[in-house]
């Protein structure tokens, strides 16, 4: 990169980089710094005076049972969405990777959910799962299940998991398909000549060779569950009932909307920032590995 710099107009270079840097500083760094700063402050009830309290906000946060509930919800939600959307995406990609007719048509349909906004995806599923009028809800009720995501926390969780998995299938499918297509045919043929059956070939050769893709997708999917499902939760359940679908990000959003505890809300944001930094670091280690591959 160093030896590529060819033009020397310093002023022009600054001007070219300026818009991006300005937006980054004003709308990214400044608010992030403010969140960090506020997380160390406590404001009195009237907002008249503030006091620097070090980690008191964090300590207070870690004493509230609701925070632990949100951690638990985020954990369960992430595991379920990541596991199901990866498994389904992989299965469909493996099938689409066979030389069969009509793959283009299948692919066209399978990428549709990617284009649907999380909040709109929620609306599609609310329509099917609405007790009383939803097609699937009525089927469940006829089958003796008292389906009601408005009152039953488990049902609410199932609903948001289904929407999030549906929304993520396309992404995982496309990346697994790209990963499968980059595996050299000769490796698989060699295994076939050695007498390995398709299932065995998949688990001993294809799946290990896909592991960089799988690892990358796990990280991206966790990031998706953390940050992009806010629209799904806000539309489908509003975090309820009784916090059963309130993830960490959704809690920041809701606590801030009420606006009572600025410091505590900022402390929550800072914890999320740390989580993103860790996830991004993992993601880029993967890229690093691929370069050396």
């Amino acid at each position: 990169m160093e030896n590529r710099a060819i033009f020397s107009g310093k002023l022009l270079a600054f001007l070219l980089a300026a818009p991006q840097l300005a937006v980054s500083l004003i709308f990214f760094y400044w608010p992030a710094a403010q969140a960090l700063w506020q997380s160390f402050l406590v404001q009195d009830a009237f907002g008249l005076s503030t006091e620097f309290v070090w980690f008191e906000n964090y300590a207070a946060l870690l004493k509230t049972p609701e925070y632990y509930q949100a951690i638990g919800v985020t954990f369960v939600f992430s595991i379920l969405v990541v596991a199901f959307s990866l498994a389904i995406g992989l299965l469909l990609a493996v099938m689409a990777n066979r030389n069969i007719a009509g793959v283009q048509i299948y692919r066209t349909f399978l990428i549709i959910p990617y284009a649907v906004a999380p909040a709109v995806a929620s609306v599609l599923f609310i329509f099917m799962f609405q007790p009383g009028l939803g097609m699937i809800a009525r089927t469940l009720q006829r089958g003796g299940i008292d389906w009601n995501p408005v009152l039953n926390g488990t049902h609410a969780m199932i609903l948001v998991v289904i929407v999030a998995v549906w929304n993520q299938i396309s992404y995982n499918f496309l990346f697994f398909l790209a990963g499968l297509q980059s595996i050299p045919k000769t490796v698989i043929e060699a295994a076939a000549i050695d007498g390995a059956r398709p299932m065995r070939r998949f688990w001993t050769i294809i799946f290990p060779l896909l592991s960089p893709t799988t690892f990358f997708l796990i990280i991206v999917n966790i990031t998706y569950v953390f940050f992009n499902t806010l629209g799904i939760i806000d539309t489908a359940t509003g975090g309820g009932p009784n916090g059963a679908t309130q993830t960490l990000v959704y809690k920041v959003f809701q606590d801030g909307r009420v606006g009572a505890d600025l410091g505590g809300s900022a402390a929550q944001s800072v914890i999320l920032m740390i989580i993103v930094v860790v996830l991004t670091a993992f993601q880029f280690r993967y890229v690093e590995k691929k370069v050396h591959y």
Partner: protein
Amino acid sequence: MVEHRRFGNLLPHLILLAGIIVVAFPVYLAVIASTHDNAAIANGQMPLYPGTHGLETYWHTIASGTGKTTRQPVGGMMLASLIMATGIAVGKIAISIISAYAIVFFAFPFRMAAFWTIFITLMLPVEVRIYPTYKITSDLSMLDSYSGLILPLIASATATLLFRQFFMTVPKELVEASKMDGAGPIRFFFDTLLPLSVTNIAALFVILFIYGWNQYLWPLLITTRDDMQTIVIGIKKIIDVHDALTEWSVAMATAVLAMLPPVAVVVLMQRLFVKGLIETEK
């Protein structure tokens, strides 16, 4: 692929068909619901084939919205979404391509600092700095404005990285030849670099347009005026009334209209979409 299968390719076809049904059924159901009247939907006996109320529902939805809740015509919401999505996509591409140009082709002090400043924004998604960002936007009196909807979202580390990656593959000889012809940095950018980047720009546009159209959190905070509402926010307000009052045919028509532009972009520009998706992420 390798050996002859006894049942041919029956199994993959069956599994893929099942996948398509799972993926497409919710969308199909929304389309069907938007053609029936509210009464047929509300009693839970909606048939699985199209009804006869489609035209009037869509006309009513686009031109006047629901009578019971927002009263905002969905046509206006779509326009707001279109402006926001296009603004975000064009803005991100424009500021990213020029900053990548500066970083790759110029020697200037703090070049690496500039690069890292842009790169680290990757780790600061709007969700972790919701209210401080809202406060700044409000202090700059950009609430309820398109600049407030668009500007705070247009910094893009991914787009900058993508252009940087691509610019680094441009052969040095090309720059030298252009210099020999007496072209300065601005002419080189417009005459050589921009035409070479067309495919990348198009692929990125597809991804970013969908990203912009589907935004939820930011427009929810920034717009309080009903006439600036994007369709993704508006649809929530349409279903957000007491069960019995929801006009499901209008809600589903709105869902279909909210899906139509991004789905059309993905399906019609599939190759660009796949290219954009895979390259921006890697």
